[in-house]
């Protein structure tokens, strides 16, 4: 983007890059250069709630995962959990539960590794102001080939776990209502065990790498796009971090409990979805606080802030160190999302190692059944945050209602807050707006690892277009990327 005066104008970043899907950011300033509005517009439309109506309930776990090519396992497992409820199953067999968990940890491991190394590390390692032409995964491979190879092999390992547990690396069919359709063979376990120690070691190195980067630049990173918020996530009954199952907990900005131990089926008593006329994406909020004050963050930062402990030793030690940042309060820094994400990467590797040693994953008791129900809600902690699937099914076994609240939707208002903070700190009152400054807006959004394909539904692709428009709508400057 060329330098431009900042008299009354609107900055448009369209689309935001290195995220999944298509978003547009507008930042509007008044004649004094003060930020008037900062918004992320989601211009895609999701139709999955409508697509699945009329389909048979057992098809849902395979249909809804088509929402996304990066976290299909989350939708697959969440729909399967919801359909467990429809067939009256509240407890799976040990083999089914552990196979599903293994699939989920494999998914979290690969998704977090892909996000950190592929999408965010170009900003962190090459610099926010590096040439945009090289500020990407290829640039990382050229400058840090060993790190790039590590990223490739971590992602590959997670995908192998998914393949072993669901039958395919993408869009598998492992989870079925009431259980799972396969367990692991000795050969599969041996193959996966070969590399798990290396994966764990690389995970620990990754969190240490980011920790050092953060602490070395703490004044800048702790403030970049940061703000205080409520947090929502699942936690296990005893308060432990649990990515697969649990009860809902919400904390406020000071760490005080807003609600706790909420069963998924009761989510509508605690969470509502608001709308704005400038975005297709909804704005969920905590009912008791209202839409203006009740918005909340989900995802790795929320989970690490909300849980009381982690039940794997290395990740727990990392969590304790991380929580010192908050000095007794939750950590609110947007850029701390990366740190929390990498702690979860370590946790996932530890859990995978634990499960590969568990004889139950070779078991043959795969499916169970119960008394048929007509409504069910499931929540899972997807890599990007709490994912809600709510279905109603009639006596013909057809789905009559579906409602999905995906993590990126919950992080909608927070991403808007992050954009506003960056705009206020780096754009307001400035005579010139440069490309690196605009990239800072995207850096703050990327920290949330938004998946707009999940939050809406991506079709096609558009080039990057950055426009500077004055308050009369006249284009002052324009640049097209890609």
């Amino acid at each position, binding site marked *: 983007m060329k330098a431009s005066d900042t008299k009354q104008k609107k900055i448009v970043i369209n*689309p935001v*890059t290195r995220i999944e899907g298509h978003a547009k950011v507008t930042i509007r300033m008044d004649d004094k250069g003060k930020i008037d509005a900062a918004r992320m517009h989601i211009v895609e439309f999701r139709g999955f709630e409508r697509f699945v109506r009329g389909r048979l309930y057992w098809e849902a776990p395979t249909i809804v995962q088509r929402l996304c090519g990066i976290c299909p396992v989350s939708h697959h497992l969440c729909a399967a959990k919801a359909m467990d409820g429809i067939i009256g199953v509240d407890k799976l067999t040990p083999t089914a539960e552990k196979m599903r968990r293994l699939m989920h940890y494999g998914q979290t491991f690969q998704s977090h590794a892909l996000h950190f190394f*592929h999408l965010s590390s170009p900003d962190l390692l090459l610099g926010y102001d590096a040439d945009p032409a090289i500020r*990407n995964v290829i640039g990382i491979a050229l400058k840090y080939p060993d790190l*790039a190879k590590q990223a*490739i092999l971590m992602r590959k390992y997670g995908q192998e776990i998914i393949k072993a547990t669901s039958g395919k690396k993408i869009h598998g069919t492992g989870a079925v209502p009431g259980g799972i359709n396969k367990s692991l063979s000795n050969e599969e376990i041996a193959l996966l065990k070969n590399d798990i120690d290396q994966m764990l070691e690389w995970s620990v190195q990754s969190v240490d790498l980011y920790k050092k980067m953060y602490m070395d630049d703490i004044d800048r990173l702790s403030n970049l796009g940061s703000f205080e918020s409520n947090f929502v996530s699942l936690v296990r009954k005893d308060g432990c971090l649990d990515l697969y199952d649990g009860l809902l907990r919400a904390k406020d900005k000071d760490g005080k409990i807003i609600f706790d131990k909420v069963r998924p089926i009761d989510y509508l008593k605690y969470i509502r979805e608001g709308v704005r006329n400038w975005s297709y994406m909804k704005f969920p909020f905590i009912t008791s606080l209202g839409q203006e004050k009740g918005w909340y963050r989900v995802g790795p930062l929320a989970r690490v802030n909300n849980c009381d402990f982690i039940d794997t030793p290395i990740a727990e030690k990392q969590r304790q160190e991380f929580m010192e940042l908050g000095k007794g309060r939750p950590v609110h820094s947007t850029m701390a999302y990366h740190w929390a994400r990498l702690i979860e990467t370590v946790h996932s590797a530890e859990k995978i190692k634990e499960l590969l040693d568990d004889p139950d994953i070779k078991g043959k008791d795969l499916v169970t059944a119960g008394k048929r129900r007509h409504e069910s809600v499931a929540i899972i902690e997807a890599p990007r945050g709490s994912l809600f699937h709510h279905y109603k099914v009639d006596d013909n076994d057809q789905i009559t209602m579906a409602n999905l609240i995906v993590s990126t939707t919950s992080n909608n208002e927070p991403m808007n807050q992050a954009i506003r903070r960056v705009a206020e700190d780096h754009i307001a009152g400035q005579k010139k707006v440069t490309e690196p400054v605009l990239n800072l807006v995207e850096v703050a959004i990327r920290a949330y690892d938004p998946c707009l394909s999940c939050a809406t539904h991506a079709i096609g692709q558009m080039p990057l277009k950055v426009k500077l428009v004055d308050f009369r709508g006249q284009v002052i400057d324009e640049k097209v990327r890609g």
Partner: protein
Amino acid sequence: MGPYLSDEIGKLDLSGVDTDANYQLQIEDADLVSKYDLVIFIDADAEGPEPFNAKRLEPEAKLSYTTHRLGPESVLALCKSVYGVVPESWLIGVRGYSFDVHEGLTEKALSNSKEAVGFIKQLLYGDKGKKHGNKR
């Protein structure tokens, strides 16, 4: 189209040839292609020439705004940077005609895909019957 052709070539049981059908290309595919001396990417082409278009690929960082997926040239660029090798690579775009949701291929697309299989066999074995496509 891609999965169909992958299946068809797999059924030929060609020595030294592996097939894989994936939803999208990603960074780990750089590891996969680094192990072969010839790689053929196949997909349906909505607008290309009939019966198919064959294009030799070179490594190139062609990144889209949403980098949750990569193009074949970017996979090769990553392969070159990380593994220091670049397999001979082709992109075969087989002309398709109907992209609505339904099962199976149209008759014309099926006919185009058969011609593509003939070309791919030629790529793999060459005019003199030289075996290509071995793992490194």
